[in-house]
């Protein structure tokens, strides 16, 4: 049987603040943290985004934030990683934008655009590689002791979830001893305008799985978690296991998910089978839940097929911290990790009434979780990517 893989530390920087305690407090409060933000283009009116505060760039934000949370998570895990002799550490990052802010800054300077300054758009000339999709990963790795390299996954909004799945596989295969798994994305005029052009943005706080839902709120985050094999850990620290992973592609449409939900169903069933559990065993479901009409309908259809009459406690993080794009899967994993540690499913902010066509709805108040609960987290992205992660909480 493959070795169990456990989450042993984590750090986060997002609209809810810095650190796991601030993050969890924000989730339990379940109040939207969206605000207006100057993204650096005077023609852009970003009134409902969820960004860390303060947001003052020194260099490239994505690199800076990624390095900060990875260092934070590794510091927290130091007592455990130092038990290993010369641990083989790899950094795996999920990001859909990578060094896009740097690309944008340089491109606009060369295009002599008026919007060449402002918060989040770096000045100066960075090395060409830092503006690539794996740029922040490489820059962060230079600051960390990653003996086994640093690799990036980009499957749009399921990027960090896929990075977690890959980390689990490599730990089980003994390719690495310690995985620092991170997600990072930073909003820029390019990204905001792109989503706005698709009419995907709600100008008020997003309301997933609600009747009359109008879209998403963009958010920024950097999240890092440290994962290790259970055989390298004292039993008392084996609290939350990443127990299963499933990945699929809708092969349907570039931006619109397959309404049948069959792609997500495949990913969910693969994760459940990987962890040798049944759908009825799931106590907590962390949904992707962007608040767009199509995504939530697709997820609702998938959940109905997988769970049938079973109703796990459901949570959606995006009303609080926004849709953090490539980092979203890591945000959701952070919620699940804390929920299983604390035996509590957090509530979800609700602005609009529930969609009556979607049977499974987010909780509107906290709910106790039994010890040794199972949780499932789902992520979906442009291009039809679907990822499901299965987590197991240890007996307290």
């Amino acid at each position, binding site marked *: 049987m493959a070795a169990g893989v456990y989450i042993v530390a984590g750090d986060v920087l997002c609209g809810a603040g810095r650190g796991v305690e601030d993050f969890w407090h924000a989730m339990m409060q379940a109040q939207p943290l969206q605000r207006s933000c100057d993204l650096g283009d005077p023609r852009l009116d970003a009134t409902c985004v969820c960004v860390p505060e303060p947001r003052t760039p020194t260099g490239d934000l994505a690199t800076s934030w990624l390095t900060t949370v990875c260092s934070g998570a590794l510091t927290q895990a130091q007592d455990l990683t130092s038990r290993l002799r010369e641990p083989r550490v790899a950094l795996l990052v999920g990001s859909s934008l990578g060094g896009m802010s740097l690309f944008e800054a340089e491109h606009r300077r060369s295009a002599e655009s008026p919007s060449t300054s402002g918060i989040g758009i770096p000045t100066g000339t960075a090395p*060409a590689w830092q503006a690539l999709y794996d740029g922040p990963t490489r820059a962060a790795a230079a600051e960390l002791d990653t003996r086994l390299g640093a*690799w990036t996954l980009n499957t749009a909004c399921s990027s960090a979830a896929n990075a977690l799945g*890959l980390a689990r596989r490599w730990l089980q295969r003994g390719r690495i001893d310690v995985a620092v798994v991170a997600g990072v994305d930073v909003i820029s005029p390019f990204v905001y305008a792109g989503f706005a*052009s*698709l009419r995907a943005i709600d100008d008020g706080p997003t309301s997933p799985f609600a009747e009359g839902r109008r879209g998403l709120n963009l958010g920024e985050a950097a999240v890092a978690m440290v994962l290790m094999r259970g055989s390298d850990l004292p039993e008392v620290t084996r609290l939350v296991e990443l127990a299963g992973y499933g*990945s699929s592609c809708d092969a349907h449409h570039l931006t619109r998910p397959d309404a049948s939900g069959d792609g997500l169903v495949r990913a969910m069933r693969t994760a459940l089978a990987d962890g040798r559990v049944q759908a009825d065993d799931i106590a907590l479901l962390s949904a992707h839940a962007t608040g767009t009409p199509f995504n939530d309908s697709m997820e609702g259809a998938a959940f109905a097929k997988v769970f049938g009459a079973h109703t796990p406690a459901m949570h959606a993080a995006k009303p609080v911290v926004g849709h953090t794009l490539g980092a979203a899967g890591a945000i959701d994993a952070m919620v699940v990790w804390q929920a299983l540690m604390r035996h509590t499913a957090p509530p979800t902010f609700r602005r609009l009434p529930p969609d009556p066509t979607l049977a499974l709805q987010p909780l509107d108040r906290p709910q106790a979780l039994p010890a040794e609960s199972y949780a499932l987290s789902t992520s979906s992205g442009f291009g039809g990517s679907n990822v499901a992660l299965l987590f197991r909480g240890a007996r307290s």
Partner: protein
Amino acid sequence: MTLDVHLSAHHALLPGPLLKDHDAVALRRLGDALAERLPGMDRYSRLDRYGRALAKVCAEAATSAGSLPLESGLSVASLHSCEETNAQFDLELIAKGPRTVSPLLFPYTLPGAAAAEAAMHLRLGGPYRVYPGGADAALVALLTAAEGISEGEMPACIVATSDVVGEHTLRHLTHGRSLPGPSEPPLAEAACALVLRQASDASRGPMLAFEAALGPGDPHEPELERTAHEALERAGVQAHEIEQVISVTTRPELAEHERRVTEKITRNAERLSLPWRLGNAGASLGLFALLAATEGQGPALVLATSGNGTVTLVLAECSLW
């Protein structure tokens, strides 16, 4: 224990002859293959050259491989990916403003958009992963595809790469003072796709057995040596059995480290530096290296080092030898 898969089919678009553009930048472009119309690919009109090259190699490889089950996956790597589309969208945004920019191009400003179009065209519903990066990322894409197949995650997988050098990329490299110097391989464009199937699918293509080890970015020689030894151990191959050493590293100082380490470990092996044969062709060099290894006489060591990480792959067995 090695990862055992069948190489069911492959298709490559190789760099053309060395030419210099109007700014005297030496470049090996893809030939006219991209101008050919692919059946059923009218949907690809919004793909840039990177996307069309990726879609073409995937489609051609899939056709050669025969029908692929719905659960088949796609594993992609690219260094520059959709930079030209990003630049085009940004120019539209600058010109038209955020309220009136067209939504048609935005979805293609993702490295995975071209892969997604290929998945739709070929009906690939299995695991789908995109690894931004160069040849090292391509070897990670190959490794994870083989891992997935060997674990029963998917019955088959297309592993694909594509890199083109457009106007924006050239300007970006020039501005960042990152154009290759006279002692480095020239820039090149290429694309490649391999179709891997389960080892039990006995009728489909030569059998490959390989394993790999990971190492740090910008490695020193001791780290390279450690990674090479780990890869050999994982593949169950002794150093003296290596017949061929293939490097896909483009930076001269890293290539020199590799040469010293591999001469120390594998003394009599034949050496091949693909970037000096084909140019700096981005991620595709990783897959070209595996194909070159299959054309050898025995076990091969493939090295890819970059600022991100090191991947050392050992091809232990190939039924073509």
